[in-house]
C-alpha cells in the first residue's frame, strides 16, 4: 500500500511536470517567438485552455502527499520555507498575468503582464528543478525528521548544505532548458506562421542543450549521491523507465528532422515522464534523503499514513483519476488543431 502510494504520487507529479511544463516553456519563449500582440495572443491561446487544469495536478499531488506521506510534505515544505513562498508568489504572479493581460487593450498593460508572465515562467522551472536537486542531494534532517536550510552556504554540495549549491543550481538550469525545449515543441505543434517558424528555429538549439545538460546532470547526481545508481543493477523498473526517456529523446530528434512536431512533442512528454520515473525508481523508497545520518531519511515506509488511511484514499483515487484523464482528453480534443489569435474579449 505504501509503495502503491509512492507511485501514485510520483505519477501525479510526473503528469504535472509534463503538462504544466509545456505552458511554463511556452511562457519562457513567448517573449522571443511572439513579438506583436497578435502573435502573443496566439501563444496565449495555445496554452490558455490548459494551464489552469495543468496546475491542478500540482495541487492534487500536494493533497495526496498530505494524505499518504504527511511527514514528508510537512518536513519539506517547512524546511524549504522561504523557497516555497518564492514558488507560491511566482505562481500567483504568473496566474494573474495570464488571466489579466487581455482584459485591457493597452500596449503598456499587456507589455507589463507579458514581461511578468515570461519572468515567472522562467523562474518556476529553476526553482522546481532546484527543489528536485535538493531532494536527490539530501537535506540535514534532525531527529524529528525536520530541517531548516539556509538559502546558500559555500556551494559545495557537502555539509553544511544550502538550498543552492553547484548541484542544485545545475538541476535548476537543466529543468529550465528542458522545460523550455518541451514548450518549444508544444508551440511548434500548435501554432502556425511566423510564431511557428521562430519556434522551429529554437527547437534544435534547445534540445541540443537539453540533451547535453541531461547527461551532465546524470553524472552530477552520481557524484553527490553515489548510492542512487549503485543499486541500479537490481532495479529493472529503473532500466525500463530509463529506456523510455532515451526513446523519448530519440523520438524528439526524429520528429524534428521530419518536421512532425506533434510526434516530437509526444517524444518530449515521454522523455520527461521517463526521466522522472527513473528518478523515482532509483530513490525508492526514500522520499526525503537525510544527508548526514542516513537512518533519518523519510521514506515511503516510515513516513506513510496507516494502511486504513491509504486504502480509503486508493478507493476514491481510482474513481477520480479516470475522470481527470477524461477531462484532459476532452480538453485536447476540443482545442485540437492549430490555434489562431482570439479577438478581444473572446480569448486570452
Amino acid at each position, binding site marked *: 500500500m505504501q509503495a502503491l502510494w509512492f507511485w501514485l504520487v510520483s505519477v501525479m507529479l510526473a503528469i504535472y511536470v509534463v503538462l504544466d511544463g509545456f505552458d511554463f516553456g511556452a511562457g519562457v519563449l513567448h517573449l522571443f517567438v511572439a513579438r506583436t500582440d497578435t502573435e502573443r495572443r496566439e501563444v496565449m491561446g495555445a496554452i490558455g485552455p490548459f494551464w*489552469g*487544469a495543468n*496546475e*491542478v495536478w500540482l*495541487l*492534487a499531488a*500536494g*493533497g*495526496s*502527499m*498530505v*494524505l*499518504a*506521506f*504527511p*511527514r514528508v*510534505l*510537512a*518536513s519539506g*515544505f*517547512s*524546511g524549504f*520555507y*522561504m523557497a*516555497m*513562498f518564492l514558488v*507560491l*508568489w511566482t*505562481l*500567483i*504572479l504568473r*496566474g*494573474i498575468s495570464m*488571466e*489579466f493581460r487581455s*482584459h*485591457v487593450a493597452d500596449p503598456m498593460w499587456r507589455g507589463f503582464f507579458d514581461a511578468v508572465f515570461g519572468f515567472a515562467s522562467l523562474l518556476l522551472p529553476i526553482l522546481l528543478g532546484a527543489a528536485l536537486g535538493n531532494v536527490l542531494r539530501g537535506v540535514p534532517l534532525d531527529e524529528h525528521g*525536520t*530541517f*531548516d536550510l539556509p538559502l546558500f552556504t559555500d556551494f559545495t554540495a557537502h555539509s553544511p548544505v544550502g538550498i543552492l549549491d553547484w548541484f542544485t543550481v545545475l538541476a535548476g538550469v537543466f529543468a529550465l532548458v528542458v522545460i523550455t525545449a518541451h514548450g518549444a515543441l508544444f508551440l511548434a505543434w500548435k501554432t502556425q506562421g511566423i510564431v511557428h517558424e521562430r519556434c522551429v528555429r529554437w527547437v534544435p538549439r534547445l534540445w541540443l542543450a537539453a540533451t547535453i545538460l541531461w547527461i551532465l546532470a546524470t553524472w552530477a547526481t552520481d557524484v553527490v549521491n553515489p548510492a542512487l545508481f549503485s543499486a541500479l543493477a537490481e532495479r529493472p523498473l529503473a532500466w525500463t523507465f530509463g529506456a523510455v526517456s532515451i526513446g523519448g529523446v530519440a523520438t524528439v530528434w526524429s520528429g524534428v528532422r521530419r518536421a512532425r512536431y506533434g510526434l516530437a512533442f509526444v517524444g518530449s512528454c515521454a522523455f520527461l515522464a521517463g526521466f522522472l520515473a527513473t528518478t523515482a525508481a532509483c530513490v525508492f523508497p526514500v522520499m526525503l534523503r537525510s544527508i548526514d545520518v542516513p537512518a533519518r531519511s523519510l521514506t515511503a515506509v516510515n513516513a506513510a*499514513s*496507516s494502511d*486504513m*488511511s*491509504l486504502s*480509503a*484514499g486508493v*478507493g*476514491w*483515487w481510482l474513481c*477520480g483519476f479516470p*475522470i*481527470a484523464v477524461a*477531462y*484532459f482528453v476532452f*480538453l485536447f480534443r*476540443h482545442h485540437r488543431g492549430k490555434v489562431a489569435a*482570439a479577438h478581444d*474579449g*473572446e480569448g486570452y
Partner: protein
Amino acid sequence: MHDAIDVHRLQFAFTLVFHYIFPQLTMGLALVIVLLKAFALRTNDARYDDAARFWIRIFGINFAVGVVTGIPMEFQFGTNWARFTSYAGGVIGQTLAMEGMFAFFLESSFLVLLVFGERRLSRKGHFAAAIALWAGSWLSGYFITATNAFMQHPQGFVVDAQGRLQLADFWAFVLNPWALVQYAHTMIGAVVTGAFVVAALGAYWTLRGVHADTARINLKLGTVIGCIASVLVAFPTGDMQGKLVARHQPIALAAMEGRFESGTHAPITFIGQPNVAERKLDNPIEVPSILSFVAYGSFSSDVKGLNEFPEDQWPTNVELLYYAFHIMAGLGTIFIVIMLGAVFLLWRGALARSRWMLWILMLAFPFPFIANTVGWVTAELGRQPWIVYGMMHTTDGSSANVHGGSATFTLIGFAGLYFLLGVLYLFLVGREVAHGPSSAPVAH
C-alpha cells in the same frame, strides 16, 4: 511579536480572509449564472443571455483571483502548520486531495469554455459549462468545509501507535454531521453574497437609468434569491449550526454570547461589551430566556457561562469572537429585513421606482462579504485553543522549524502582493461595471 505562533496564525488568518472574498462570490454567482442560462434556454429571451454574459465576465476575473489566492492556503498546511499536517494528514489529506481530483479539475477544464466559449459552443453546451462550474465550485466548498469540520468536531478517526490521527471510517469522516450543517450554512451564505451583488448592480444601473433590461433582470433575480437565501442562512441552517456549537463547543457558545455566569433562562444579547478582566458584559441590551431556547429548545434550559470552565480552555480571543458572532448575526437579521422589503416592493411592481430602496440595495453589497467573513472568524476563534478540537492545541500545530522572522517576512510579502491583487481586481471589475452588459457576440 515575539512568538512565532502569533505570526503563523496572523498570516493564515490574513491570507484566508482575503482569499474568501473571492470564492464566496464565485459560488454565489455560479448559481446565478446557471439560473440565467436556464431562463435563457427556456424562454429564448436574449436578455437573459446578455445578463449572464456580464456576470460570466465578472466570474472570470473573480475566479482567477480566487484560484491564485487559494493555492497559498494549501501550501501553508505544509509550510506553516507542519506539525498539524504530520499529525492529522492521514485524515484531512483525504478531503484536500479529493478537492483537487473531483472539484478543481472539473472547474479548470470548463472555465475557459464558460468564459470564452459562448460563440463556439451550442447554447446547451454553454449551459452545460455553467453547470460544470457551479458543480465544481460547490463541490470544492464541500471538501474544504469537511476538512474544517474535522478540525471542529473530529469524526471517523483513530489515534495510531505514533500518536497520529488516521482514518477509521471514511463515511463518518466525509459525512460528519458538522460538515453537513456547516456546508449548508456556508453555501447559502455565499448565495447571499452573490444575490446582494447582483441586486446592487441592478439597483445601480436602475438609479442611473442605464442598461434597463439587464438592470431589471438583476434586480428581480438578486432580490428574489437574496430573500430566500437570507432567510435560509438564518433558519434552519444558522440555527442548526448554533445548536451544534451549543452541544459540542459549549465554551465557544459562552464566549460568543459574552456569557460568564451560568444559569437557566439565559438571555440573548444584542449589544454589550465583553469585559474579560472583570468577567462581565458591560452595557448589555438583552432579551431574557431566548438564548436558552435557541441553544437547547427550552426557555428554562441551563446555559453554561465561561466561569464554569478553566481559563486555559477558553477561546484565546473572547472579545473578537463575541463581536464576530454578533456582527454576523446582526447583519444576517438586517439582510432579511432588506430583502423582504425589496421583494415586497417587487411584488407590488414598485421596486424600480422606489429610489430609497434602490439606494439601500446598492450600498448593501459589501455587508454580506463582512457577514461571511466574521462567520468564519466565529467558527475559527470558537475552536481555539484547539487546532483539532479536543485533540491538538493550536500552539502545537505550527512548524517548529520556522521562526518568527521568516514568518513575518512572508506575512509582509503577502500584504504587499495582496494589496496589488486587490487594486487590480477592483480596477478590472470597475471597468466591467462601467462598460456594462454587451449584446450577443458577433459571428466572425
